[in-house]
């Protein structure tokens, strides 16, 4: 019964998504800009929810409550600071400027924007290559996660490889047909669905337990009571909370599928509204989801066999069909994040590697075709990798947010400081990446510094290198130093 309900809901979701994709396809133009950015036309609701769903989906449903279950509800504060505040500020500082530049010069990717300013094809390719280095293993992890989840859901009736394969095929079909417009539309449905389901779950559990006071009282009386309810612990040190919130907040802004959403707003008004509503949207999702995780600990529930706590608490306190609906929704959410990653990965490759280095005279129409072919190649490669799940790729995927965060400060310096030189930004990007990769894979570079993570130390290094080397070097003749400062107006 449970299985039938869950599979029914997943299949139902896939069909709805495909229908949305087909409608989007009918509206699309056959150009790369339309495929990647829906021709920069999104309104407030779509922009807000596509960013929301892309950023938060699978993680909030599963990993967030798990952390709250294991270490306490302070994770709400870390995520609130990271996504609700830091990311919002970056949405203005990086995002609004990127949006203006994108409209003015037709940029589709971060690498393109930097390459044009610094007159450097190689810088453009470098930024794209770094993006793909972290994105590829991250997509692989999503596929592996979907395969594992389907296998767990069906008690092995759908084996891991078949589950991951099916989801890969669906994603390919969907992304190739729907492009950015279709993805954003399904994200909107999904984000709203996710928010509603989280609140219904929360309220359901609250009612069954006899109110939040009773639920928290049980937690207070348990062996972790003082540790969980008191702010801070050995796990939640100020250094760790700040490092995590800052590094991931900046990392999110440089993650290709999120960074690309900086280009897609239809107007300035849309950006303003999204910016002002963002913190409320974040807190609305984090509080109920993570509080449930920490209550589960107080209630003495055991972590589920698949390593997730949310399904356990739902199974305990809500009817089968309801729990199935939430879990299936979460799996669908996992897929929707991956769609956007495939699309942005394809744009980085086609736009910043293929076009400048292989075929400079590419027409719009042909670029659109190649972009869709690259989606297929990218998804199949990550799928094959997910079958083997090599340790190096696994580690890169897990560290992707910190890896992307290394790009943020050099980019911000370039956007706001006229004297940034090509050598400066290149040194900042290469130096911080080299440092962070070494901290991951070698013993010589430590991974923590008095409680602060290598991610944040690497960011500082990138900043110092970008500013320092820029100050010491002169710009080359083909750098366009004024381009980020002239004609910056929304109209």
């Amino acid at each position, binding site marked *: 019964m449970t299985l039938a309900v869950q599979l029914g809901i997943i299949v139902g979701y896939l069909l709805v998504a495909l229908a949305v994709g087909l409608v989007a396809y009918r509206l699309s133009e056959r150009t790369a800009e339309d495929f990647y950015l829906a021709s920069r036309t999104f309104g407030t609701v779509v922009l807000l929810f596509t960013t929301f769903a892309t950023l938060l989906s699978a993680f909030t449903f599963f990993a967030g409550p798990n952390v709250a279950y294991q270490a306490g509800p302070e994770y709400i504060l*870390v995520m609130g600071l990271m996504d609700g505040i830091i990311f919002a500020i970056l949405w203005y500082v990086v995002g609004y400027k990127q949006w*203006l530049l994108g409209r003015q010069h037709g940029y589709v990717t971060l690498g393109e924007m930097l390459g044009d300013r610094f007159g450097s094809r190689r810088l453009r390719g470098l930024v794209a290559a770094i993006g793909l280095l972290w994105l590829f293993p991250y997509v692989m992890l999503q596929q592996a996660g979907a395969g594992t989840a389907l296998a767990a859901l069906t008690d092995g009736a759908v084996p891991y490889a078949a589950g991951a394969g099916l989801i890969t095929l669906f994603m390919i079909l969907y992304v190739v047909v729907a492009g950015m417009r279709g993805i954003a539309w399904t994200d909107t449905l999904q984000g709203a669905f996710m928010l509603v389901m989280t609140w219904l779950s929360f309220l359901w559990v609250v009612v069954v337990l006899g109110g939040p006071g009773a639920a928290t009282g049980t937690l207070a009386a348990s062996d972790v009571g003082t540790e969980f309810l008191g702010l801070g612990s050995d796990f939640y040190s100020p250094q760790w909370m700040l490092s995590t919130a800052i590094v991931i907040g900046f990392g999110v802004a440089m993650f290709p599928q999120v960074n690309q959403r900086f280009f897609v707003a239809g107007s300035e008004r849309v950006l303003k509204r999204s910016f002002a509503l963002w913190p409320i949207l974040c807190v609305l999702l984090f509080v109920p989801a993570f509080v449930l995780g920490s209550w589960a600990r107080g209630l003495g529930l055991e972590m589920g066999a698949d390593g997730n706590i949310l399904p356990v608490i739902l199974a305990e306190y809500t009817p089968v069909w309801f729990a199935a609906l939430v879990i299936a929704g979460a799996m669908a959410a996992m897929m929707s994040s991956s769609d956007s990653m495939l699309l942005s990965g394809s744009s980085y490759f086609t736009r910043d590697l293929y076009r400048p280095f292989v075929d400079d005279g590419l027409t719009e129409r042909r670029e659109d075709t190649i972009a869709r072919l690259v989606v297929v190649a990218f998804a199949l490669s990550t799928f094959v990798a997910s079958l083997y799940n090599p340790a190096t790729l696994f580690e890169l995927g897990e560290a992707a947010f910190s890896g992307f965060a290394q790009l943020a400060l050099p980019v911000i310096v370039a956007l706001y400081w006229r004297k940034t030189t090509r050598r400066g930004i290149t040194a900042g990007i290469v130096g911080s990446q080299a440092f962070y990769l070494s901290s991951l894979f070698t013993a010589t570079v430590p991974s923590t510094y008095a409680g602060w993570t290598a991610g944040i130390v690497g960011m500082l290094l990138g900043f110092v290198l970008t500013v320092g080397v820029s100050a010491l070097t002169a710009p080359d003749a083909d750098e366009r130093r004024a381009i980020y400062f002239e004609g*910056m107006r929304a109209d």
Partner: protein
Amino acid sequence: MNRLERVAWPLAALVLVALTIPWFLWGSTTVVAGFPIWLWWHVGWMLLASLVFWLFATRAWGLGIEPSERATGWGDRP
């Protein structure tokens, strides 16, 4: 926009970041209406952040990015 506002907005952003986690309640286990008091602070702070962002969007949008004085408000300027 006057000089005071140019300084005040970045400062406001900094304060928003600095107090999203209520450091002054570190170690507090007080529970109010079923939730830890530090969680109530956080929820209130996020609402305040939204209000500050809204004020910024209507009054100072473009600060640090667009070159000079401009009319402000929700809309796209004519």
